[in-house]
């Protein structure tokens, strides 16, 4: 501790360093080297390379932990901790950023906004996520959150000539800043209680007090506002449909998957860390919020005609399911969240990628009408979309079923029968609106229109998501073992 900066410190944040370096390199490269806009299509390769190195860093961290039999490794005097949890969630971020990076080119070009900084922003956002999953210090976590949020504000408004995109970015920015304020307030109260920003110290200080202590209660509620905003839980979900609809679809995919996974990781760090001893306070609170989230998310999705908006509400309801895992709170539940996040990554990315392919130079391709007759036009896409939607709905034998299975199991194990029944009934509601898309694809006639915008990267990404969505459902064993690592053995 006497040395300010050690090589261990370096090692604990190496993936984030790589991401930031590559992000800067992309910016410079785009500015100095790229001769014409046409050559920008090679930029994703940089992002892929950056992700590869970041993945290598993660892999080395993992190898280091297993080799030395450590369950965790802290750096920067306890500000960051790499453990099974952080590595698991970071793999999710790597995969989703990678997929988003390779599918964006054609979409942005069709929208007339293909710029180099897009890839830089993806990597910067991911480095913010890295700290959300790895940070064990209130300040580190907050900075990570802001880094992620700020880049997303920019990315949501990336279609500069599109009014909807601008409106979405502004809404997201205003509400996001407001919620960050709440979060900072809660964190400052925690600091006031503990006199330290380390999560472990805060946890000890809070558990020394009664959970109904007014200061603890205030810290809990204000921090919860910020946390729940990020995962778009009701009643802090208002931004999600607008932001999802207005943002470029590739950004929506990234936002709905990686940002949500990072926020869930953050949420778990806080609720199972400093706030663990106040469980009796937040458990009923979160139960109400989870039920409200499921209800509003599912019911509002039923009447949507815009696919992105529909998926936005569906992703709100998925946040509700993830919260239920936290409410159950036993190891099945926490592991269930990890499984859920993993399957959600692939199925939700996949569903959005199909919407990405619908965007052509003259067609926005976001309405239920635009996907009509997809089965006749490009059966491959239709069948993949069917798989993703079934998985989102949680129908076996797809991956989504597995995610819900563990959440329900955890609820039953901990005796939350009423919540379990409500949550399962909403599966049937969800089927209704997911199948509206299916109906449009399979039953309705295709309008005359240009072929789908398909690129090599998009096909690869869709193939990978589709195969994994099925594989996790059919042969879950290795994936479950992988998710188990998030519990740190």
């Amino acid at each position, binding site marked *: 501790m006497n040395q300010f900066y050690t090589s261990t410190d370096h090692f604990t944040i190496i993936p984030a360093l790589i991401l930031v370096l590559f992000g800067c390199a992309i910016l410079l490269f785009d500015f100095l080297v790229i001769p014409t806009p046409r050559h920008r299509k090679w930029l994703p390769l940089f992002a892929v390379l950056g992700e590869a190195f970041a993945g290598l860093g993660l892999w080395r961290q993992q190898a280091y932990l297993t080799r030395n039999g450590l369950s965790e490794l802290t750096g920067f005097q306890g500000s960051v901790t790499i453990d099974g949890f952080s590595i698991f969630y970071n793999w999710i971020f790597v995969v989703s950023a990678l997929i988003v990076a390779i599918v964006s080119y054609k979409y942005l070009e069709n929208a007339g906004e293909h710029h180099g900084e897009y890839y830089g922003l993806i990597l910067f956002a991911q480095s913010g996520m890295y700290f959300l999953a790895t940070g064990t210090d209130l300040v580190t976590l907050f900075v990570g959150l802001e880094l992620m949020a700020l880049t997303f504000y920019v990315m949501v408004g990336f279609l500069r000539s599109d009014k909807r995109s601008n409106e979405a970015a502004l809404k997201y920015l205003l509400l996001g800043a407001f919620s960050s304020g709440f979060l900072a307030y809660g964190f400052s109260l925690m600091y006031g209680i503990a006199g330290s920003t380390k999560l472990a110290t805060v946890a000890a200080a809070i558990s020394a007090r009664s959970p109904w202590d007014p200061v603890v209660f205030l810290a809990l509620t204000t921090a919860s506002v910020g946390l729940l905003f990020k995962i778009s839980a009701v009643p802090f979900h208002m931004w999600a449909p607008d932001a999802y609809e207005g943002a470029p679809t590739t950004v929506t995919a990234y936002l709905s998957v990686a940002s949500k996974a990072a926020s869930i990781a953050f949420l778990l760090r806080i609720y199972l860390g400093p706030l663990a001893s106040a469980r009796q306070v937040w458990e009923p609170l979160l139960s109400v919020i989870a039920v409200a989230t499921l209800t509003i998310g599912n019911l509002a999705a039923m009447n949507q005609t815009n696919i992105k908006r529909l998926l936005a509400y569906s992703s709100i309801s998925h946040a509700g399911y993830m919260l239920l895992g936290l409410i159950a709170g036993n190891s099945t539940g926490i592991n269930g969240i990890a499984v859920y996040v993993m399957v959600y990554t692939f199925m939700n990315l996949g569903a959005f990628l199909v919407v990405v392919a619908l965007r052509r130079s003259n067609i926005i391709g976001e309405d239920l009408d635009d996907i009509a007759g997809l089965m006749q036009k490009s059966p491959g896409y239709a069948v993949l979309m069917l798989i993703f939607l079934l998985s989102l709905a949680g129908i076996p034998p797809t991956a989504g*079923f597995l995610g819900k299975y563990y959440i329900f*199991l955890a609820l039953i194990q901990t005796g939350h029968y009423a919540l*379990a*029944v409500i949550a399962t009934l909403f599966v*049937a509601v969800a089927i*209704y609106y997911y199948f509206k898309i299916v109906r449009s694809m399979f039953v309705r006639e295709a309008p005359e229109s240009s072929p789908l915008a398909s690129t090599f990267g998009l096909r690869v990404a869709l193939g990978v998501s589709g195969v994994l969505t099925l594989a996790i459902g059919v042969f879950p064993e290795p994936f479950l073992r992988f998710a188990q690592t998030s519990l740190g053995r």
Partner: protein
Amino acid sequence: MIAFLVLETMMIGTFAALDLTLFYLFFEGGLIPMFLIIGVWGGPRRVYASFKFFLYTLLGSVLMLLAILALYWDAGTTDIPTLMHHTFPRSLQNWAWLAFFASFAVKLPMWPVHTWLPDAHVEAPTAGSVVLASVLLKMGTYGFLRFSLPLLPEASADRTIVQILAALSLVAIIYGALVSLMQPDWKKLVAYSSVSHLGFCTLGIFALNPNGVAGSVIQQVNHGISTGMLFLIIGMIYERRHTREIAEYGGLAHVMPKYATVFAIAMLSSAGLPLLNGFVGEFTILQGAFEASRVWAAFAVTGVILGAAYLLWLYQRTMLGQVTNRKNLGLADLSARELAIFLPLIAWAVWIGVYPKPYFDVLQRPVTEIVERVRPNYGRGADDRLSSSARPRRPQNAMVCATCNPGGAQ
């Protein structure tokens, strides 16, 4: 075709699974191809029908998932043979039983959650209807026999539950038959007759004695054969005339003699004429029901009569008399291909009707085990909760006698 093969995989999986979770996986997975079969290749209201089918069945089965999870949590395994030897606490049994019931009752379908069935049947393509009637519905009865009864014996033997189930079955039998009588639509008529026949199956199961259960299983096979044939018959006439209005037909026997013959056999097998398969199943069920309660049997027998009534009347309206509609004059009779479809089914129907012993022999052991598990004292004279006169008897002898001496049922 792909959808049908996937569906078949799922169905075989459902019936073969020896693990609750796996069973659930296949049970639900079967919905998807069926949804597509109805939704893509169905009739004019196919979208409505396919959604209704999917939502109804799903709503029931998600509750079953919860019950499966609860059983798993209590027993620590989802392996069915192991679970058979596990005794669950009574309160859990009741809740799990209700959850299983929700799923199977919708699948069966029992009255009053049967409303998806006519829609699904009418809108589905012929092949879809046949598979739906012959196999998919049996997942429900199979579920009762495989899970509800052996896994949750105390809840299943509960007096209230048995009474309610019997009442629901009787309502289904009579209601299904009455609605069938009134149907102007040929296919809908057969669909409602399914409700009535499945009512017999559940009545047999919840008579909770070897005769009832064995009869129920046989009747499930019978229903698959005879209703499957009826749906094929409707499909073939629909291919020729593109209408299912009964009023459009009449006197077809003059134009299509082979068709009329096959239809007669299918209809009589469905109505339960002795020497055909339907009789064996219905008679055994009635015997079981009679043993459990005379009132049940009395009501159920009216169902048999009504069944004969609507089927015979259907036959009379479509096949007999003079050809009333000129469009029907030029209809082609069954081709060799179509006959080849029916012949094995007819042969099978006659086999079960004339010599059902092999089937009952196969069934005897599992049925006895199921009944013993639900009513440990059955057949020892100690348990007369359901039957007015409980006396020990050997089930398979009764069966053989039933077929030696036909004629007592109607």
